[in-house]
């Protein structure tokens, strides 16, 4: 008789279900992204997911682990999805593959596979590319409505795989806006303008800005916010990390904005631009590489928020979520160690 151990009953939510739930909650954001930025990101997601999955399978075979059972946990799938969302839409395919292979092969499996990685795999892959190919990685498309050349699915595929659309436009040409200038992201625009001495008002005359943040970006962020709130509602993620991150970003940018309303981006801009919401609800909450104590999660989130603000304001890169998450990943052990909760019957630690 096979002897088992208590408890004999389990809550139904399983790890692979958690992973799939997170992926499903990305869908609104992906859809909005598709609506504003075209097919590029869907192609990147497909590419990244395939590369992640193949890498995972190959490494599991090399490690002599049950491939089918383990890939069922969908964690590689999630890494691929997050990576694909974050990458610029017309990034050359081989860069995406490099990022995916690095994320799964090095960052995840060299540390021991699921549950053992120190860093968020998707963000580590992203940063690898950001450092290696800074130009390609900061070449975002303008929103479809403002683009000079409309890129359909076929054009997008050609751009990603050959570098030229079927009409012969290059990636740089694909970035042309209606005015014939190369598009910059809202965060990039603000940063450049403020450094050039423009006021915020002057900068925001630029058509890359929308209703309350960047055109298109604000809606993408809103969609990720909704997906994230659903994850919290379903208790898939705890609200401490996004709460801590958004709160600290809001407070810090708010203080800065209050002191120099013309010289700093508004809190709204910070919260609804770039990868803020994606980062807060889908990336920083990766449980493996995040803090695991409640207090620690608040600190972890707040740390990311503060670093996002710092890098966006003073750093060399327009956005900062990936760097901030990786830096915060490094401090997880320390934070958790000092955030041990008081055990029942024990006195508060001195």
């Amino acid at each position, binding site marked *: 008789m096979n002897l088992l*151990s*208590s*408890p004999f009953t389990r*809550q139904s939510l399983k*790890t692979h279900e958690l992973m799939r739930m997170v992926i499903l909650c990305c869908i609104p954001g992906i859809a909005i992204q598709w609506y504003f930025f075209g097919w590029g990101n869907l192609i990147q997601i497909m590419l990244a997911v395939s590369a992640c999955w193949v890498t995972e399978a190959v490494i599991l075979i090399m490690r002599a682990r049950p491939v089918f059972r383990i890939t069922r946990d969908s964690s590689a799938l999630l890494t691929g999805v997050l990576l694909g969302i974050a990458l610029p839409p017309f990034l050359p395919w081989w860069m995406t593959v490099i990022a995916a292979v690095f994320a799964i092969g090095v960052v995840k499996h060299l540390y021991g596979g699921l549950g053992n990685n120190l860093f968020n795999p998707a963000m580590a892959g992203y940063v690898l590319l950001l450092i290696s190919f800074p130009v390609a990685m900061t070449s975002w498309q303008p929103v479809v409505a403002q683009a000079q050349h409309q890129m359909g699915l076929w054009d997008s595929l050609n751009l990603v795989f050959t570098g030229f659309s079927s009409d012969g436009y290059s990636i740089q040409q694909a970035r042309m806006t209606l005015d014939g200038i190369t598009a910059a992201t809202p965060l990039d625009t603000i940063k450049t303008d403020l450094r050039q001495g423009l006021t915020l008002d002057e900068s925001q005359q630029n058509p890359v800005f929308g209703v309350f943040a960047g055109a298109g970006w604000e809606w993408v962020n809103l969609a990720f916010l909704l997906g994230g709130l659903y994850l919290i509602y379903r208790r898939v993620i705890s609200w401490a990390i996004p709460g801590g991150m958004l709160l600290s970003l809001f407070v810090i940018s708010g203080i800065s904005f209050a002191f120099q309303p013309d010289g700093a981006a508004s809190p709204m801009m910070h919260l609804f631009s770039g990868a803020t919401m994606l980062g807060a609800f889908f990336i920083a909450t990766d*449980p493996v590489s995040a803090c695991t104590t409640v207090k620690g999660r608040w600190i972890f989130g707040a740390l990311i928020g503060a670093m996002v603000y710092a890098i966006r304001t003073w750093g060399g890169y327009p956005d900062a979520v990936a760097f901030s998450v990786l830096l915060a990943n490094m401090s997880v052990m320390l934070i958790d160690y000092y955030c041990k909760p008081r*055990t*029942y019957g024990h006195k508060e630690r001195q």
Partner: protein
Amino acid sequence: MIDVKQLLTTDKLWDYKGGVFPKYNKEQSRQLPIQPYWIPPVVRIPVRQHIGQSGHINVTEGERVLKGQLLTEPTHGMAVPVHAPTSGIIESISQGAANHPSGLSELTLTIRSDGNDEWRPRQPYANADELSNDDLLQLIRYAGISGMGGAGFPTEIKLTPVADIKLLLMNGAECEPYISADDTLMQAHANEVVQGILLMARLLDHPVVVIAIEDDKPEAIEAMTQATADYDQIRVRSIPAKYPSGGERQLIQIITGEEVPHSGIPADLGIVVQNVGTAHAVARAVYHDEPLISRVVTLTGQRVLKPANHWVLLGTPIEDLLHHHGLDELSQVIVGGPMMGYQLPKLSGPVIKTTNCLIVPGQNELSSPDNQVPCIRCGSCADACPVNLLPQQLHWYALAEDHEKLSEHNLNDCIECGACAYVCPSEIPLVLEYRQAKAAIRASKQEQLKSERAKQRFESRNLRLEQEKIARAEKHQQAAQARLKAMAEREQQASAPAATDDKKSAVAAALARAKAKKAGAVSAPPKTVVDESGQTIPDNRDVAAQREARKAEARARKAQKAAQAVQDSGATPTELPADSAQQSADVPAADNKAARVAAAVARAKAKRQAQQTQADDSVEQPAANLTEQVTGKPAADDKAARVAAAVAHAKAKRQAQQTQAGDSVEQPVANLTEQVTDKPAADDKAARVAAAVARAKAKRQAQQAENQRSPDATPRSKDQSDS
């Protein structure tokens, strides 16, 4: 300290962090009535059914016992007796299947019931006031009552007040899914439960009583409220259903807001927690003289046709009980609830005092996980933990077997409620890991304790040896001083002409004897060597020579004493001690040092020579001569003699080394030894040490030589040396 007055009036309940809400599954079994007990053909009573020791068996095989008869005598403090649940014959007293997760056997009394269910004579008390508190405690003890909720702690001990108890907390929470035994007991026997509570309260000097029941048992709450309506010191509280609210420490937190201090007990807060089932058992014992021989057991699970609560005689084999209720082909039976229960290892195990529920689950009703995946540190377990541990970190450290970190994260505060494993999305058997880690820590602590003891033993042995050594050294020093004194006296005599002759003659006699003996020894060996092909004799001779040397020394000492006695009688006795003491302080100190240095130099030189002339074997004779000469020198010339002795000794040693393969070498060594030991009182400590060293060396060399020649010679030489 808790505010008890407030507990009677407040509506406030506290909450504890964590906890889970599993599917309760109590509806199936919680209807009344409780089914009457069934008398199985055979009952098996393990002698130990609680925490503590078993009593002393006071029945024999083949004896007929009556229902309620005492089977074991509680001979020590933590012992709780067991009783015959029905009348019958003791069939055997042997190891039998136990109702315990370990699956190990236990000493079990097997009774074949005669079906009469015949009681022993009973003397129930109508009024418990007749009983003194001590009598009441004894009665509870002899009724075999131990906690019926979980662990089975002897009730009598818990009711013996160790502190000022302000609150008696009656646990009717029954938070585990499936179980409804306490629920139905409170519904059906509320009055008896209250009677038991009153008896317990009396023993604890009338504290406030709070009966805590989870709010999914409205009938039980109603029944208990009615039964306690007349008592203003008793209050029934309905608490929210949440697992594990029925844990002793969690319940205290819910009702009082206080936490039992780490490594403390509830009594530290002035609280005693008792199960309602235990209260019922106490009432039955006092008012019906009915020891604990039956209890309410929930029979449930999808495979049980009519889930219900049953009175079950303790000792009823679970297998038989389930067969009796129409269940065949049992594969899995869970004892207790699904959260903290265990799978019964042997179905023939009996119902015991703590068995509150038996679950026979359907195909997919209850299962332990079989597709465990890695921990993703989601932290659900930490959210669920009622004692605020970090199960995800404990899991990590348990896998790494990092006992230090496990203790740092308070593994020992884990109550093994299973909430963490229940919520774990990766289906990790966390509780199992913690149990194993706890056991490993316990084992390693014991190991540590053992090695600590071994270390202490070793150290005290070393200390003892050291002390013995010191004592020995002291003794030797005393002896040496005595000899020095004698020497001083002798020198004193040298100045006094009357004594000189005596002394000289004594010394001369000793020397002559030594010489003669040596000559004998020198002449003897060649013959023996020739006769016995020179193999083992040297060793024997060595020993013999040493013995002779000692004898000679003794003789010399005797002669000297005699001389001294003569002298003492003649000379003035009062002056002598002072002089001798002075001399012993002056002379040897200066001389010894120089002599020792010289000796060391000589030894070193000799050694070097020995290495140079390993092949040369003609040196032995001179050495022997030299030693003779040394011995021949007058004792007054102490220093020179010692130096010479050292030189001789060195030479002899060299020869010994040199002729490891040769023969008759030990002779000079023997001589030397003789000579060294032979030296009368003039010898000081250094000389004695040198002699000892020389002896040891000679011995070793002899052994070496022997071993090299023939291995079978050893026993023979032993024989000879013995003879």
